[in-house]
């Protein structure tokens, strides 16, 4: 599958090889029109009607203000406030890193928090933490912004909404709970999933002191089904973890284990170790059994499904039937009658079962968090039958401090509340008014509770109906601890004193206990561990030394949950009840704002969701076929897609979505519809977390609230739904069509077999066969015309015959392979001049010094990229990238320096089963012959000595010529003052090493030049060379899949050179002769020959 690159020609509808969305597939005139504008939003700015009066006012003001602010003198001197006593470890100007932990959904992931002058400015993965291994997901990364959220609750409020002092509140609460203890009135504590051992101990102590107290855990996107499934299979609520470094065949049953689980960061790293297509020892393409193979069976297209080698789209409700058929095919007998699956599904079942059986003990079946306990139990049973349990599937003791059944417990709590027997309810974190199952009518029940105390970071929906609201400390402001996906404990230490004096749940409860009332949170956590320090967790120095070490490393050694030596039993699995064939509704936590708690986080709101690329909204997601059934969207070329707005003075690219009413179990919500290729038919997915009423300025008015549709009877998958189009439409801000590559075959891809075949041919005759992915600098069809048309070809070629041209071309071509492929052939390199290496020696761009000792470059592996967008979030945090808001995103003005393009491959968007999805992160390619540089009139973008395409903000005058001339569309322009210069808290958050950009300035990826220069200064000072891997760009550092590598091209042993010497390496649009420093390793899949459609 040699793919030459050719000049893009307008693509007729339905003939696009890769398409970014249904608009592109259908090739609508509006879409093409939009593409032909570099900045489709330009014209808009001038369509706002400006009255003569306004014009005159502005003109007058302009004249009056001319000269004001023009004084070149400094308006005022700055002040420097030094310490009075400087901490020993602190040097102003140098960052400090602290290991701490980020907890969400009952799982803590280790992070390293970077602190500058006492302010946390960036979160990075903690390489020593088992749940991170150095990677970090986008939600954890963006949680930093919550710390500086100006809408955070800033004080304790009493019943009358008056600010109250902590001591006064504690006094009142103490007497209240004391009274209840005496009267025997119930005290209830409603928390999120507890994985903090200290919190567990505090709660136990609380229950001991106040015998009428009881703890209820509630998590709207919790892992109840995982726990119940484990109980069914193993008889107790064990914790199941997977070792994907040994799993060569993986079946994901409606599971997005690579991206959206809290253990995904680790799983993505492990999983991709068996996915790399790098040549093995002896220049051999990895064999089929050396690469893993992933089968995904799911309804909504997830990132995991997108990177799967095979994906079967079926309703989530039908996954159980599929799982049972699979169990039967691997020889398991489950209770009850086996379901009958369709012939097509049976084919899949047979192929997967055969594959799994060939890899006994080296495969894994994993069920999604929202699948029923039965599916989990079946998956465990299959793993048991295949001998995977104990090998790739590891059973450990539970990691929750108090394993419980949240859904049932919450129901009991509401019943108690309704009965009026609850005297006091402490809601520690969480937002049950917004998230509780709608049929429980939590708000009504809460009205019957005596004293309601809410601890939360915002004055949210729950806070306003409670008597007391206590502002909660951010996790970077207080002491805590938490267990990782495998049980390993991290001490979560604060980096900053609470900005607004917030308190933690541990603090609040401890204050009501006599023993710990006076203790600072640090002492509470430390005292707990002093008593419970693991025997093998300390160092020689005893507890104190061990504690220091644990703080430094971010983990307490030896605290991983104990292995449980148990095999699953199938006997407990309930008999099969076939689901109704009616439309199903899937509830999922949102990929960015999660269960709604991050609704006010601009970084996450603007982070395009992995698959839909939607920002600032959720949607009712359906397949094109379902859309046709329900008459939603516009019919074009046999498929349904959204409308594209073409009115409004040139404003294009806004997705005009239909609005529909979604009904299930007698409840109805209304929302915009997103038509998603690859989604299972007759199935609807809605994401929770939007439509918040009280969350702050940022999240206000985004999306619709899906919780009112969600009952306790079917929290994840509800069958019997109905979708009805209603009048009206809604503008969705999806970035999928922005910065479009116009079908220039950006993603090179092949199956493993194709790769092996092409590589073998190349090895036989490198001169004749173009390599699998590597392209000659200019593709063959272009060569002739360039030769004829380029005036002043270099002298040595003048007058040469066509054959000689051809020879020269091959010489250069072969050489460029040699150069990349066989590094030891250094001599040969010297013999050739620079010109030989490329086919168009004529260029306006001067050569960069290729003998320079440092030449920075990047390679991105498209095989292992899982599209999770952690790179994007990391880039935003590192480079002070502003949030622009929904309106500006619809104008294509989002500022992200790296975008993750998502392409569909397939000839019919209706054919979900044959849809292949690819991800491609695109940062600035740092071209050696950068087209942007030659057009800048003020030299604001020019090359640095080490090959970086520098962007000099203070020189930029905003002509935007550079962006026009950039073939990769990676430059971003500050059309307005996007950076928030006013909000005080944001000033604390910014990376002081990176300029905050003003309006009218172009910006783009710099390869994190501040990190390069930092490392350079360090190395130069020590008089040594920069070590390979010493500089990690923010995107590379965050990447859970380790799909990005950065380093020095001039160092033959550098990792980036190893990657770039792979035969799958190619440059994006390399035919343009831009010589990009960022290259890609082609996407190679390892499909099962039995399932490949001929």
């Amino acid at each position, binding site marked *: 599958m040699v793919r030459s690159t050719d000049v893009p020609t307008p693509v007729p509808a339905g003939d696009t090889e890769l398409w970014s969305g249904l608009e592109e597939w259908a090739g609508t005139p509006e879409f093409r029109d939009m593409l032909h504008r570099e900045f489709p939003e330009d014209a808009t700015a001038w369509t706002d009607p400006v009255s003569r009066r306004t014009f005159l006012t502005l003109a007058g003001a302009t004249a009056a203000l001319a000269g004001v602010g023009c004084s070149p*003198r400094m308006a005022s*001197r700055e002040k*420097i406030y*030094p310490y009075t006593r400087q901490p020993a470890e602190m040097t102003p*100007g140098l960052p400090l890193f602290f290991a701490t932990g980020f907890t969400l959904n009952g799982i803590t992931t280790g992070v390293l928090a970077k602190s500058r002058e006492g302010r946390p400015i960036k979160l990075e993965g903690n390489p020593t933490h088992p749940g991170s291994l150095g990677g970090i997901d986008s939600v954890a990364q963006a949680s930093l912004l919550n710390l500086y959220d100006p809408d955070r609750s800033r004080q304790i409020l009493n019943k009358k909404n008056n600010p109250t002092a902590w001591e006064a509140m504690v006094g009142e609460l103490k007497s209240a709970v004391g009274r209840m203890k005496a009267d025997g009135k119930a005290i209830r504590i409603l928390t999120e999933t507890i994985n903090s051992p200290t919190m567990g101990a505090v709660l136990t102590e609380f229950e001991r002191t106040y015998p009428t107290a009881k703890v209820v855990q509630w998590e709207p996107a919790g892992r109840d089904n995982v726990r119940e499934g484990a109980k069914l299979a193993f008889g107790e609520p064990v914790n199941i973890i997977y070792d994907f470094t040994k799993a060569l065949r993986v079946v994901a049953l409606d599971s997005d284990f690579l991206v959206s689980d809290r253990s995904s960061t680790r799983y993505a790293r492990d999983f991709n170790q068996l996915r790399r297509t790098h040549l093995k020892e002896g220049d051999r393409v990895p064999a089929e059994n050396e690469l893993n193979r992933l089968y995904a069976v799911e309804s909504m297209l997830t990132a995991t499904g997108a990177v799967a080698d095979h994906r079967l789209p079926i309703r989530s409700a039908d996954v159980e039937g599929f799982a049972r058929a699979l169990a039967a095919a691997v020889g398991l007998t489950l209770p009850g009658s086996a379901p009958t699956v369709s012939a097509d599904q049976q084919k899949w079942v047979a192929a997967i079962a055969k594959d799994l059986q060939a890899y006994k003990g080296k495969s894994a079946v994993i069920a999604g968090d929202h699948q029923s306990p039965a599916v989990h139990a079946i998956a465990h049973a299959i793993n048991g039958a295949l001998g995977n349990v104990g090998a790739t599937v590891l059973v450990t003791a539970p990691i929750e401090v108090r394993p419980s059944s949240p859904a049932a417990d919450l129901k009991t709590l509401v019943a108690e509340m309704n009965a009026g027997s609850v005297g006091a309810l402490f809601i520690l974190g969480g937002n049950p008014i917004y998230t509780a199952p709608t049929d429980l009518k939590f708000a009504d029940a809460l009205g019957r509770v005596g004293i309601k105390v809410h601890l939360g970071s915002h004055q949210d929906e729950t806070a306003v109906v409670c008597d007391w609201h206590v502002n909660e400390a951010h996790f970077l402001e207080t002491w805590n601890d938490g267990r990782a996906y495998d049980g390993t404990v991290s001490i979560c230490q604060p980096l900053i004193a609470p900005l607004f004096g917030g308190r933690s749940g541990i603090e609040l409860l401890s204050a009501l206990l006599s023993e710990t009332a006076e203790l600072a949170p640090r002492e509470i956590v430390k005292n707990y561990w002093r008593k419970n320090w693991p025997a093998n967790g300390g160092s020689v120095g005893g507890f104190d030394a061990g504690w220091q070490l644990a703080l430094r490393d971010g983990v307490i050694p030896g605290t991983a949950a104990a292995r449980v030596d148990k095999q699953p039993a199938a006997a407990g699995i309930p008999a099969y009840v076939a689901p109704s064939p009616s439309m199903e509704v899937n509830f999922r936590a949102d990929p960015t704002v999660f269960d709604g708690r991050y609704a006010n986080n601009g970084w996450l709101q603007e982070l395009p969701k992995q698959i839909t690329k939607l920002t600032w909204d959720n949607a009712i997601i359906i397949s094109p076929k379902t859309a046709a059934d329900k008459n939603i969207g516009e019919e074009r070329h046999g498929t349904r897609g959204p409308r594209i707005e073409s009115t409004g003075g040139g404003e294009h690219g806004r997705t005009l979505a239909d609005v529909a009413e979604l009904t299930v179990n007698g409840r109805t919500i209304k929302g915009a519809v997103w038509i998603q290729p690859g989604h299972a038919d007759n199935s609807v997915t809605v994401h929770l977390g939007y439509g918040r009423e009280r969350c702050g300025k940022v999240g206000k008015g985004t999306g619709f609230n899906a919780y009112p549709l969600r009952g306790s009877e079917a929290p994840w998958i509800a069958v019997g739904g109905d979708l009805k189009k209603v009048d009206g439409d809604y503008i969705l801000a999806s970035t999928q069509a922005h910065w479009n590559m116009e079908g220039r075959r950006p993603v090179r891809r092949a199956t493993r077999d194709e790769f092996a075949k092409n590589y073998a041919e190349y090895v036989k005759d490198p001169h004749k066969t173009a390599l699998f992915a590597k392209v000659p600098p200019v593709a063959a069809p272009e060569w002739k015309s360039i030769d004829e048309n380029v005036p002043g070809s270099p002298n040595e070629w003048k007058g040469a015959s066509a054959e000689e041209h051809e020879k020269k071309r091959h010489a250069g071509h072969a050489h460029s392979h040699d150069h990349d492929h066989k590094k030891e052939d250094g001599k040969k390199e010297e013999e050739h001049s620079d010109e030989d290496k490329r086919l168009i020696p004529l260029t306006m761009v001067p050569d960069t010094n290729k003998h320079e000792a440092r030449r920075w470059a990047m390679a991105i592996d498209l095989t292992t990229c899982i599209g999770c967008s952690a790179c994007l979030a990391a880039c935003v945090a590192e480079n002070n990238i502003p949030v622009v808001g929904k309106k500006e995103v619809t104008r294509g003005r989002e500022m992200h320096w790296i975008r993750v393009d998502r392409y569909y491959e397939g000839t019919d968007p209706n054919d979900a089963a044959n849809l292949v999805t690819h991800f491609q992160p695109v940062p600035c390619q740092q071209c050696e012959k950068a087209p942007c540089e030659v057009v800048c009139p003020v030299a604001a973008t020019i090359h640095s*000595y080490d090959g970086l395409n520098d962007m*000099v903000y203070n020189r930029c005058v905003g002509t935007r010529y550079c962006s026009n001339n950039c073939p990769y569309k990676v430059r971003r322009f500050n059309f307005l003052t996007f950076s928030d210069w006013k909000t005080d808290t944001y000033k604390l958050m910014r990376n002081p*090493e990176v300029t905050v950009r003003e309006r009218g300035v172009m910006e783009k990826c710099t390869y994190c030049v*501040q990190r390069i220069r930092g490392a350079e200064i360090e190395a130069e*000072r020590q008089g040594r060379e920069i070590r390979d891997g010493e500089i990690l760009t923010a995107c590379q550092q965050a990447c859970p899949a380790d799909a990005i590598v950065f380093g020095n091209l001039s160092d033959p042993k550098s990792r980036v050179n190893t990657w770039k010497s792979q035969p799958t390496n190619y440059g994006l649009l390399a035919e343009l002769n831009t010589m990009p420093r960022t290259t890609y390793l082609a996407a190679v899949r390892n499909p099962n020959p039995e399932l490949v459609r001929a």
Partner: protein
Amino acid sequence: MAQVFHRSMNSLARLTVFGLPMLFAGSVLGGTIIYRSGYITGQKEVVDQPVPFSHKHHTGELGIDCRYCHTGVETSSFAGIPPTKTCMNCHQQMWAGSEMLGVVRESYKLDQSIPWERVHILPRYVYFNHSIHIAKGVGCYSCHGEVDKMNLTHQAKPLLMEWCLKCHRDPAAHLRPKEEVFSMTWRPEQMKNPATGEPYTQRELGTELMEKHKVRGPLTLTSCSMCHR
């Protein structure tokens, strides 16, 4: 036909033809001069400080090393302004009752920073790093001037980009041996060139030190992202 213009118009025309370009040239020249003047750059402007700290007394007369107070200069981008504790190390004993030091004692007692006025102000898009300049043998003197003679500190150099570039284009003109970086009195003539036996000229010594300190060339040092990012 009568003359349209009066005779005197001839001289006016001459004045216009020659005067306008001169006015233009003059304003360009004037602008340039004003732009580079201390009025704009803040050069030589003495800044009032909350405490009238004298570098002349502490460095010049007492001979306290720069690094006693500016502790970050060898490791960090920021040389560092000393914490009040550093002042109090001595002034708890010496001049403990001095009126001038009231602000310092107050700061120490109340644990509140002394609000020093910044003297050397670079634009926010400039990322200057002290440590690398020290490591490569650029003396404090080269940028900060004769600090040992300053009663109240002022900015000795214009700190314009062209001034930075002068050295980045030709570091040899300013380099000194690493052990002399903090000296205020060092001159290249004080050292003898072992090759010739004559006193060193800055050019000779600088060229040697470029090699010795592995100072990178002008092409590297004038890359935009060296200072702007």
